[in-house]
C-alpha cells in the first residue's frame, strides 16, 4: 500500500529526514517510534503534503501512485488521512458542517453522490456513539475550546467518518488519559481489515498495548535504524533509545 524509498526532506533548509525506507503492506499497522527530534512528525507532514516540507530525495508510492506529486486534498481523496498531533482550531466553522464538507468533498472527488444533512447526521451520530463521543461535539466549532483529549477524539471521529485506506496517527496518544487512549485505539482497531493500513507514530509504547502493531520501526536522526515485531516496542520501553543512538552513530 505505502512504499517509501530513500526519502529525504528538509524544513527551512534544515535536513530532517535522511533516507527513509519503509513498506507498509495493505492490512498492516506499523508503528514508528523515536525520541523527540528524530523526524517522526516531519515524516507525517511530508506524507500529508504540508507546505514548507521540501522533499530533497527519494519517493513515496501509495497504491502504486506517486504520492508526492499530489496536492494535500488529492492525497485525502486517494485515501490518506493524517491525525494531527496538534489539531487546528477553526473558529466560526461548526464541527458537523466541517465533517460533512470533508466527507462530501471526498465523495464528490471519487464520483460518489453527496450526503445531505440528514443522511450525514445519521452516519455521524452512529460513529460518535460507537466511539463514546458526546453528540454536542458536532455543535461546537471545530476544536475550539476542546480539551487536548477532546481534540484527539475529534481526530478519531474524523477518521471513523472519512474511512481512509491509510491512517497516519501523529502522536495521537500524547496527553491522553487511559480512557481516551482506549477510545482512540478502538477507533483505529475498528477500521482494521485487509484494505486498511496505519502508521502509528508515537513516543511511548503505551498506545501499542491497545493497537497491536504488525511491525515496529525506530526512527533516529531521520533514518529507520531498527525494525522488529511488537516486542521491539516493549524492549525500547525498558531500555530507552540511548543504546540505539550509540548504535546508529
Amino acid at each position: 500500500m505505502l512504499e517509501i524509498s530513500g526519502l529525504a526532506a528538509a524544513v527551512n533548509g534544515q535536513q530532517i529526514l535522511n533516507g527513509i525506507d519503509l513498506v507498509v503492506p495493505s492490512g498492516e499497522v506499523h508503528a514508528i517510534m523515536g525520541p523527540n527530534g528524530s523526524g517522526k512528525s516531519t515524516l507525517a507532514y511530508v506524507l500529508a503534503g504540508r507546505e514548507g516540507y521540501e522533499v530533497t530525495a527519494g519517493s513515496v508510492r501509495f497504491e502504486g501512485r506517486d504520492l508526492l506529486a499530489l496536492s494535500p486534498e488529492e492525497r485525502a481523496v486517494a485515501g490518506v488521512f493524517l491525525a494531527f498531533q496538534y489539531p487546528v482550531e477553526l473558529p466560526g466553522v461548526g464541527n458537523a458542517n466541517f465533517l460533512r464538507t470533508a466527507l462530501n468533498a471526498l465523495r464528490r472527488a471519487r464520483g460518489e453522490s453527496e450526503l445531505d444533512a440528514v443522511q450525514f447526521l445519521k452516519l455521524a451520530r452512529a460513529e460518535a456513539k460507537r466511539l463514546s463521543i458526546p453528540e454536542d461535539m458536532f455543535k461546537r466549532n471545530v476544536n475550539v475550546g476542546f480539551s487536548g483529549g477532546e481534540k484527539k477524539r475529534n481526530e478519531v471521529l474524523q477518521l471513523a467518518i472519512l474511512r481512509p485506506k491509510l491512517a497516519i496517527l501523529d502522536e495521537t496518544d500524547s496527553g491522553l488519559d487511559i480512557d481516551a487512549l482506549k477510545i482512540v485505539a478502538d477507533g483505529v482497531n475498528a477500521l482494521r481489515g485487509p484494505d486498511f493500513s496505519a502508521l502509528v507514530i508515537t513516543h511511548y509504547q503505551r498506545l501499542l498495548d491497545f493497537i497491536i502493531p504488525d511491525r515496529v520501526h525506530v526512527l533516529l536522526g531521520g533514518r529507520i535504524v531498527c525494525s522488529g515485531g511488537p516486542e521491539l516496542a516493549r524492549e525500547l520501553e525498558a531500555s530507552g533509545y540511548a543504546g540505539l543512538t550509540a548504535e546508529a552513530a
Partner: protein
Amino acid sequence: MNAILDAPTRGFLACYEATKNLLPGDLRVRDQAAKLFAARGLPTPREEAWKYTPLRALNEFEFKTPGTATVAEARAFPALAAELGPRLTFINGRAQNLSPELPNGMRLESFAECPVLGMTADGQYNFIETLNVMLAADGAVLEVAEGQDANTLVLLQLAAPAEAEAIGLHVRHRITLKRKARLTLIELASGAGRYLHNPFIEIFLEEGALLRHVRLQEESAHAFHLAAVAAKLGAGARYDAFFLHLGAQLSRTELQVTLEEPSARLQFGAAQLLRGAQHGDITTEIYHHAPGCASRQTVKSVIDERARGVFQGRITVERGAQKTDGYQMNQALLLSSEAEIDSKPQLEIYADDVKCSHGATVGEIDPEQIFYLRSRGVPEAEARGILVQAFLAEALEAVEAETARNMLNAAIQRWWEGRAP
C-alpha cells in the same frame, strides 16, 4: 456655474435645473442644497472625511435623470426575497407599487406626496446628504403605530439604466416607529449597468421602539453607491442594524446614529467583501447625547486582489451622557498582498463616567487552517471560502431573523463564487 466644475458636479446641477420644478417639497431647501453643492462640488481627499475615499472614478460621468423603467426591465432579484415579507419596490428611484399588503399598524405614503427634506443644521457640508436633498424625487415614508409589531417589510431598490447611459438615483426614505412599535426592515439594493445610487434613510425611533434593519448592497460592478442612514433614538429605543456590502465599483455608506434619550441602544454589525479594484467605505458617527445609552459596532472587511476597504468610526459622548457604554471593533481579513484596509477610529468623550473602547485587527487566512481542511479532502479554494465565511460568521450571528440571515449567507456564497445576484 462655471467651466471648472467637474463632469459629475455639472451633471447633477444640470439634472437639478432640468427637474427642480417637478420635484416635490420645499424648493428653497433644495435651492440651498444646490447652491452649497455648486460651491463645494465633489469632496476631494484633502477633506479629512474623504481622505481614504477618492471620488476620481466618478469624474468621467454625468449622471442623468433616469427615464421610467418597469419591473420587467429590471433584472429579477433573487427569488429568496419573495419569502421574506411584503415588499416595496423602487426601480430607477421610483416607487412601483406603493400598495402592497402592508403589515399591521403600518402606514405608508410616498415621499412625493409627503416630502420632508431635513438638512442637518450643523453647518458642515455633507456631500451624500446634500446631493440627496437636492435631487430626491421619491421614496417611502413609513410609520408604524404605537405598540404595533409590523413584522417584516422588504424595501427593494433596483437600477436598470438604458444601455450606455449613466443615471443618478436619489431616493429618500423616512421610517418612524412610534412608542414601543417594532419592525424588521430588509433593504436590498441591486441593479445592472452604470449608475449612481444615492439613497438617504431617515429613521426615528420613539420610546421603547425596536427597529431591526438588514441591508444588502449588491449593486452592479459598474455602480457607485453613496448612501446615508441617519437614525435618532428615543428613550429605551433599540436599533439593530446589519449591513452587508458586496457590490459596486465604489461604495460608501454613512451611518449616523444619535442616542437622544436615556437607555437607547445601537447594535451595529457590518461586513464588506471587496475584490478586483473595488473600493468600499463604511463611515459611522455615533452621538451619545443622553446617559445610560449603549452602542456596539462590529465591522468586518474581507478584501481580495487590489481592492481597498475603509472603516471610519467616530463615537462622540456629550458631557451629560454619563454611564455610556461604547464599543467599536473593526476587523479585516486581507486575501492578497495588494489588498488594503484603512481604519480610523475616533473617540471624543466629554463625560467622565463612561466605558468606551475600540479595537482593530488586520490578518490573513491562517495557512495551518487551510492545510487542515485540505488534508481532509477539501479543495483549496473551497477551504478559503469556508474560512472567509467563518470570519464573517460571528458578525452574522447578530442577525436574529433566520430567513434574513440565510439571504445574507447566500449572497456571501454568490460573491465567493463570483456569481451575479
